[in-house]
Structures are given as C-alpha cells and as structure tokens.
C-alpha cells in the first residue's frame, strides 16, 4: 500500500516535471574553432584533435548530439555574437555587423531578453556581446552578470602560471580558478525563484589570446612535439608554431574543465537532464593563418555539441548549422515563438530525432561572411568584405574588394624591414591588423623572404582573387583555388547563383548599391564619437 502511494506521488512529480520548461546552459568559448577530442571520431586519427583531451565536451556529445558542420555566420567576435543573439545573419544587425565601432540597436529582438520576458531566470558570466556599445546589451547589460566569485578563469594560463611561480601546486591552482567558476554559477542558481527555468551563458575569454607561451606543456603536460605531422597544411609544422597551437589547446582544456564544473552542479541539483546544454565557440583560431577573420573552415567551423531537454543522445549528424540557428532553438525550447525577423531556423527537430547522418534534408549548406574587424586595418578604415557558401562538397567565396589586403595593410613592413618579433607577438596593430599578434604571426612575417615558407606566408597574408572555389573531396584544406578552372565553371556558376540568391533574400546590404552601407560611415571610416574607443598600444 505504501509502495502504491509512493508510485502515485512519483507519478504526480513526474507529470509536474513533464510540464516544466527546460533550462538552458550555453557554454560559449571565445575564439574556439572545431576542437574536442571527440571530433577525432569524425576526422579520423592523425588530426590535431588527437592532441586534445576534452572529457566534458565529449560527454555532452556522447550523451547528446555532435554536429560535424557547425559554422559561425562571421568569424569575428562581435558580428558572430550579434548574429547568434538576434537569430539573424550578422549583416542584418545594423551597426552590430562589425567589430570595432559596433553599436547594439535595442529594437532588434534577442533570445535572452525574450526568454526573460517569458519568465526565465537569465544570467551570464563575462563575455556575451563585445566589443561593442553598450557591452552585452542584447543580454541586458551587466544587470544579469554573475562574476562576484571571481573571473580569473578568463586569464587562465596567466593566472595559473603566476600561482605556480609562487609555489602553488598546478592542480590546486587550477582548482582554485574552477572554484570561482562554480561560485558564480552557484550564485546564479541561488538567485533563481522557486520553479523558474533558467538560461545561463558561460562566456569566458581564456581561449582568446594572449595565453602564456609554453603553458600547454607546463600546465597540462601536453608535449607540442606530439603535434608534429598533425598540423593543417597552411600552418608551418615547426616548433614555434606547434608550441603556439598547443598552448591554444591548453586553454581549450581549461574551458572544458569549467564546463565540467557546470555539469557537476546540474547533476547535484538533479537538473542535468532537464537542461539543454550547448557548447560552441565564436570562430576559429586567433593569430593563425586561415583562422579568425577568414571564411575557410579553419576560421568559421566550430564545435557544436548539445545534450539534454529531450535531445536523443549518442548521435553524430551531418546537418549544417549556422550559429544564428541557436536563438530560435533556445526560444523554441523555452516555449517562445521565434520572431519572424529571425533568419535562423531552430535545430530542435534535429535534436529530438533519432536519426543519424543528415536528419533535416534542408540542412545542406551555410552562408558566412565578413565586413570590418579592426577599424584601422586598412587605409580609409575600410572593411574586407567577403561572403561564402559552404556545402558538403564545396567552399565558394566572393571577395568583393579583392584589391584590399585580407588581413589588413602590411604597415611598418617592407622586404628589408619589419617590426621586432616582440612587437609582432604582442601588438596586433603593428601590421596585418586583422590577424591577432602571436608567436605564429611573428614567425611567419620573419620568413617572408624565405622561399621555403613563402607559400605559407602568402596563404596567410597575400591578396586574394575575387572568387575562390575549393573542391573539398580533393582539397579538404582549401588551398587549391579552382574558381578560374573551366572544368568547374558550371559548379562555380551554380554556387554563385545560390549564394547571391540567399544574400538578396536576406536583404544583405553588401549586394545592394555595391555595398555602400558598409563602405561609408559609421560602418567604415574613423570610429564615431558614440562608441567606446579601444585601448591601443602606441607604436
């Protein structure tokens, strides 16, 4: 009899749980491309993902869905985030479509504020929407920030290295930073009212440069030499670059550990399965050729793993996802109808399906693009406008102003003279300002007259033709442009038509009046007075 009562009680609890709206935990790494140890399964052995250990991302993917083809709409922090928050292509977000000089228009609906209006307890740690004015505006600014327990995780390798130098155990030092992460999430959960579903954005910046040279080895025991032979072809497979790339992976492992802190807490409070946990990054590797600010896969492809809230786990899918699709996904999970203006499409149908491979037959391509990143990268404060169409078989890119330098002007640089290695490592704006300063950038610039590495240097910095076309079956690394090859003219023409049709349909200002909207102030030209000026190192 008591058992029956217990069962009935549980039944009541179960039906209450049924109607409970799921929580959302979004773990979004700055500057993180498609990296997680579980991607080895997709790529096969021998790739750089052989080198990394991300048990928590792997767990989310294993118990949820792993996306092979997730791309950002724009490989630059602010426009990527503008797109993700608005559920629209970056080029539809007005002054939020660029990096330096971005301004958020509060008339654009954003998923966090819509969820808040629908009764969600929302909160964020650190970076949601920046650089831009006002910072994090699409998330309600700093009203919903939870970082009083500490935010040293944002400078993970710097902070841990400092502690270790003062005689702290490296594991204990890591734990201390992770305890701050836990403290912030605890504070967020403690502020929740009884029964409220929540939406939390964990947005650390540790994967963004700078990180401490040699930290992968010192803090994680990762030997950069193990990357030998696993580097993408456009990265010079030399000790300096391997170490730099390894250090990037160390920061990703720290991001993974922080995800683990959140998962543990959700498990402890019994909310893990009722939480949509999403892990991703805002674009590819910074300060490396073909990465951040490039429309190649190395720049736009990102990790995407999703678990919980009815997701049918254990699947890897071929469906193409653009990160603007996350806003309508989050809204649908929260029972809010996505506004018509959103160009993204919810992936909930993919998550709740039990099929593998291609679940949604319409998800076979994405469009990506780019306007201005660093405002002063080119003379006249001009953008490097590009749009691309990525399908399963092809990558097609249009560079609208092919006479401009893709990574910015080669300032302070001639055949015979160059900034010092230290300047190239530390000051992004010294030359090619659209590529972050880094040991890799310094190394490449140093090799500009060396015929052995000339090709790598050009892959990184040289001007590009108006059109690029890569046949992925033959050229997965996207190095042999066949746009001018008559054998592929039919393919090129078809891709061009498809891309242009999508841009026109989405009302991309770039394809109206020769892109005048993006070529004139306030989208081009010196930073206007209504935006916060970035802090810059003086030459």
């Amino acid at each position, binding site marked *: 009899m008591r058992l029956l009562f217990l069962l009935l009680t549980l039944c009541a609890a179960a039906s209450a*749980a049924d109607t409970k709206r799921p929580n959302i935990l979004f773990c979004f790494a700055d500057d993180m491309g498609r990296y997680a140890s579980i991607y080895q399964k997709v790529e096969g052995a021998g790739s750089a993902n052989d080198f990394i250990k991300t048990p928590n991302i792997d767990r989310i993917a294993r118990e949820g869905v792993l996306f092979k083809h997730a791309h950002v709409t724009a490989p630059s922090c602010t426009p990527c985030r503008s797109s993700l928050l608005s559920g629209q292509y970056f080029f539809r977000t007005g002054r939020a479509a660029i990096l330096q000089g971005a301004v958020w228009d509060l008339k654009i609906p954003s998923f966090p504020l819509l969820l808040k209006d629908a009764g969600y307890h929302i909160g964020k740690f650190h970076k949601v929407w920046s650089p831009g004015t006002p910072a994090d505006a699409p998330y309600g600014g700093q009203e919903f920030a939870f970082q009083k327990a500490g935010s040293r995780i944002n400078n993970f390798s710097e902070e841990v290295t400092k502690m270790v*130098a003062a005689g702290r*155990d490296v594991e*204990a030092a890591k*734990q201390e930073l992770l305890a701050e992460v836990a403290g912030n999430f*605890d504070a967020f959960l403690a502020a929740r009212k009884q029964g409220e579903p929540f939406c939390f954005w964990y947005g650390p910046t540790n994967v963004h440069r700078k990180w401490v040279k040699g930290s992968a080895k010192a803090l994680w*025991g990762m030997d950069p030499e193990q990357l030998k032979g696993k580097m993408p072809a456009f990265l010079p497979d030399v000790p300096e670059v391997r170490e730099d790339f390894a250090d990037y992976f160390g920061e990703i492992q720290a991001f993974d550990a922080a995800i683990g802190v959140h998962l543990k807490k959700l498990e*402890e409070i019994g909310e893990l399965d*009722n939480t949509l946990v999403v892990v991703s990054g805002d674009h590819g590797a910074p300060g490396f050729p073909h990465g951040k600010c490039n429309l190649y896969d190395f720049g736009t492809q990102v990790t995407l793993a999703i678990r919980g809230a009815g997701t049918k786990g254990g699947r890897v899918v071929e469906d193409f996802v653009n990160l603007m699709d996350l806003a309508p996904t989050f809204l649908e999970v929260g029972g809010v109808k996505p506004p018509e203006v959103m160009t993204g499409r919810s992936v909930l149908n993919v998550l709740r399906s039990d099929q593998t491979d291609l679940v949604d037959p319409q998800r076979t391509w994405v469009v990506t693009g780019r306007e201005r990143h660093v405002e002063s990268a080119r003379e006249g404060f001009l953008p490097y406008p590009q749009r691309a169409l990525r399908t399963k078989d092809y990558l097609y890119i249009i560079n609208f102003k092919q006479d401009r330098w893709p990574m910015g002007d080669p300032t302070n640089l001639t055949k015979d003279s160059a900034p010092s290695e230290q300047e190239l490592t530390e000051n992004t704006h010294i030359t090619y300002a659209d590529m972050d300063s880094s040991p890799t950038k310094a190394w490449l610039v140093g090799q500009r007259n060396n015929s052995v590495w000339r090709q790598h240097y050009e892959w990184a910095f040289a001007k590009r033709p108006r059109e690029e076309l890569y046949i992925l079956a033959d050229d997965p690394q996207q190095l042999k442009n066949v746009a001018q090859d008559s054998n592929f003219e039919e393919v090129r023409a078809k891709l061009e038509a498809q891309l242009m049709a999508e841009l026109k349909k989405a009302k991309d200002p770039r394809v109206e009046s020769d892109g005048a909207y993006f070529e004139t102030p306030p989208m081009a030209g010196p930073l206007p007075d209504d935006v916060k000026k970035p802090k810059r190192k003086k030459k």
Partner: protein
Amino acid sequence: MSGMMRFTGFLCLLLGGTLRATPPNIVIIMADDMGYSDAGSFGGEIKTPNLDALAAGGVRFTQFYNTARCCPTRAALLTGLYAHQAGVGHMMEDHSAKAGPAYAGELSNRAVTIAEVLRSAGYRNYMAGKWHVTRATKPANDAEKRNWPLQRGFDRFYGTIHGAGSFFDPNTLTRDNTFISPFSDAEYQPAEFYYTDAISDQGARFVREHARDQGGKPFFLYLAYTSPHWPMQAKEKDIAKYKGHYDQGYDPVRAARAEKMKKLGLLDSQWLVTPQAGDWDQVEDKAREARSMEVFAAMIDCMDQGIGRVIAALKESGQYENTLVLFLQDNGGCAENMGRNGPAQPKAEKPTLPAMAADALQPDMIPKQTRDGFPVRQGSGVMPGGADTFLGYGEAWANVSNTPFREYKHWEHEGGISTPLIAHWAAGLPAERRGKLEPQTGHLIDLMATCVAVAGASYPKEFSGQSISPMEGVSLLPAMRGEANGVRTLFWEHEGNKAMRFGDWKLVAKHKGPWELYDMAADRTEMHNLAARQVERVKEMAATWQAWADRVGARPWPVAPAKKGARAGVKIPD
C-alpha cells in the same frame, strides 16, 4: 503491459536523475611517529590485521607525504594549508613578533578546519586523541581556548591538548572543554587505563552514539592516536606477543621488511636500501634494546586492535559501507634519544612518594611519579614499558621503522615525510580498486580538498569575518579511483630542512646543507644525488621553492634564538 514497462523505465530515469548519493561519513585515523614500513600491509612484521583489512579492501597510496613533525602535520591536515600558512611553521611557540604569523604557534584565523567546513555541509564532527595545534595547554580562561577542538568545529572531543605524555596518566586529558583525570572520569572507567585504548573506546562510542542520536546526518571522526610516540609504554599482555622477536637485532628485521616490501610492490628492485644505522654487535644492553622494540610493536598492536573496535562499531551500526576511512602517520619514525642515556635509579621496592588523588590532574608531559607513588625513571639500564618509565626507542630502531628510506622525523628526506595512506570506502570506490597500490603523490594538504569533494561541501572564501587562504591541495578522489591527478608540486620546510617535489623530481636539503636532487622514479631511497649533474634543474626548482617559502611565510632557521630549557607559555596574541 508495455505501457507499464515504459512507466517503470521512466520512473527509473526520473529517480536516477534526481536522487543524490548520500555523502559518506569520514574517519581520519592518524598514528604518531610510526615509520613507513611498520604496518603489515606496508612491509612490517608488527601485527596489524585491522589496518591490513582496510588495505585489502581499499587503496594504498605509496607516495603520500606528511610534514615530518607532529604540530605542522596536524595543522596542515586540519586546514588543507601548508603548516606555515596555518600559523604552525614550527611547533607550539610564539615567534610571530620576530618571524611573522607563520610562527604564531597557534592555528591561524585565516585557516578553517575540516570540521568547520564539514559542519557547513551538515556533518557532525567528533575527535578523539591528540590535538597539538594550540599553545593553550594551561588556559587561564575560556577565551584562551579559542583554538581548542570544540572552538574549531568539533561537536565532541576526548583527548589531549598537549602533544606527548604518559600513556598511563596523560597530561591535559580533556573531555569537550574541560580537563579531566582518567581516574575520576565517570564516563569512562576501564579496568586498566591506557590512553590508546581510551582513544579507541571513545571513537567507537562516538560512532555508536551518532548512529543512535544523529541517524541520517553524516559524521566526521578524527582519531589521532599518540601511539607509538615515546614514551615506550604498553600493556604487558601486548608486549608478551613480541617477546623475543627482536633479539637478533636490527639487520634481520630490516632485511625481512625490504624483502616483504619487494613482494608487495612497495620497493622497486632498482632502489638501493639505505645502510642500517647502529651496529647490533656494539650494543651493550641488548636486552633493553630488544625490549624497546617489543614495546614499540605492542603499542602499534594495541592501536590496531582499537581501530578494529572502531570499525566494528561502524559495521554494527550499519555505517561502514558508506564511510571513507583514511589511515596515515604524522611523520617518520623518531630517532630522538628521549630518556635513553644518563644515570638511572633502579625501581624501588615500595612507593617512595605520596600517592596522588584519583581526581588530581597530572600536569606534566613526563610525570614526576606514578599515581601510586613510584618516581618515573629515565636513563641507561631502565627497561621501558611500565608507567614509571619514560624512554624513546632510539635511532637504530627508528631506522628499521623507516625501511628502506633515509632519515627520520624532523628531516625532509623520505624517512621523515613518507607515510602510508590507506583509503577504504566500500560504497564510493570501484571494486576493482580493492587492494591496489596507488603511486600518485599526495600530501596532507589534499585531505581538506578530498573531504570537500566527497561531502559536496564548499570551501569558504571568508569565515567568521576573516578572509581564508585558498586550499593548497587537490582532491584525492580521482587518484583513489585510479584516474590521473596531474603533475603535482609539493613543498616542505621544517627547522631549516627543506624539500620540493615536482613530478618525479625531488629537491631536498638538510638545514645549512646543500641542495640534493633525486629522481624518485629511479631512486626513491635517495642514494644517487644528481644535483651536480643537473645544475639548471636545481637552480630552477630552488627558485620555485624560495617563491613558495616567501609566499607561505617560511623564514630562515632558526627563526628565533633557542631558549634553553624554557617551555612555551600560554600567552596568546590577539
């Protein structure tokens, strides 16, 4: 039917998703001045069936470390900080005016104890045994007891505030907050009072009373034995078990231990066993020397029996399965020459002094007399064991206790800082880990982090209005489960002896001596000093050691001029 099945399945999911495992009870048992290989499961011939059973059902850490001395070990264990950070950079003297807060000789208020942290997670906290982290052994008022156990997070306490004393009549014996005499204690009147038994019996009692009165709450029990610290005193029936076992001297015992350690997987065949201290052939009074080790063995034997009684209480009350039991030792075997030399008097036939009243408090570490009026004797020729003797067992036996390592209590070589750590938790550790050796390094500072992790507690940034130093250690739970815990960096400083461990490398120096460097994977017995060959590594590690020392407030030794014969007072700074 299928609907019902689906419902049941859903129910399981629901339960699996919402139920949390009950936090385990935690029992930390610590022995005093016991060597690395004294326990049977670590190579010893002394009978420790109860510890061996814990070892067989649990995990044995083979490279676990203490601080080489009583007070700093207890401070680090209780707080999860290096002893200097906890205010116990040396022992219980106040040198803070000259040497800073690291040498206050009191638990710092910038530190929290495990009991204080676990209390916030709903635990009840009990302690039986030796405290020794306060100078307040003669408190003038309650305010001076601010660092006594009940004032630092424990709900019940039975034991001694001071660090050493007679097993038959200990000084500073305390129940909760009040000094008591063992002979007028209404709550505990055994046929023969022996402190080790008293600690065990109170521990078992706390376990039973907890199950009876506090069922449902988890508990923490800190069982800090004074066995087998000097004086060599034991019950005759326990000594009798070891009669004649040590008559052949040091070498055969040491050789047998080394052999057994090899079989157990504790001694790598490429490590050289250190040379024996002391030449048995040169020992004049072989009978006393053998008797010293018999008594020492009996002291450990009695402690093991008592641990058995505590385990039995856990089992009886159904709490054993979900209890994390940890056993360790506070430092290596002790070579101090307590009472062994000098002139001695023979035992008188009749008491020569007035008897002491049952309720009188015996005030001294070395009592002047027994309760029935016999003077307490020290010096050559005195046979250890009884209540009227007060002797150590000497360097040579300490060397046996520390087989196969170099040095002793006080030093940072492996003989000083190595301790077994046995971890047993039937409900929490995978079955395949039972009986396994775990070679990953660990240190006392990890016990706080471990307790925080298993209890699901949170370590505070502030406590009682004071900001608290962050934990120095990491949870041992992954290592207990056989998972990697990363490359550790650990540090030591005691009386100018210093050391650092980074991965397999160990940098170590004696006070005023040069740095020595050892590769612990190839040479844990520290027989091949690599310092001259790896100058850069030594330089680098030494710089990190210095940064640590500066950070925790460790100062060059001596931090203050030695006071001849002076005992630490009880004046406590604000």
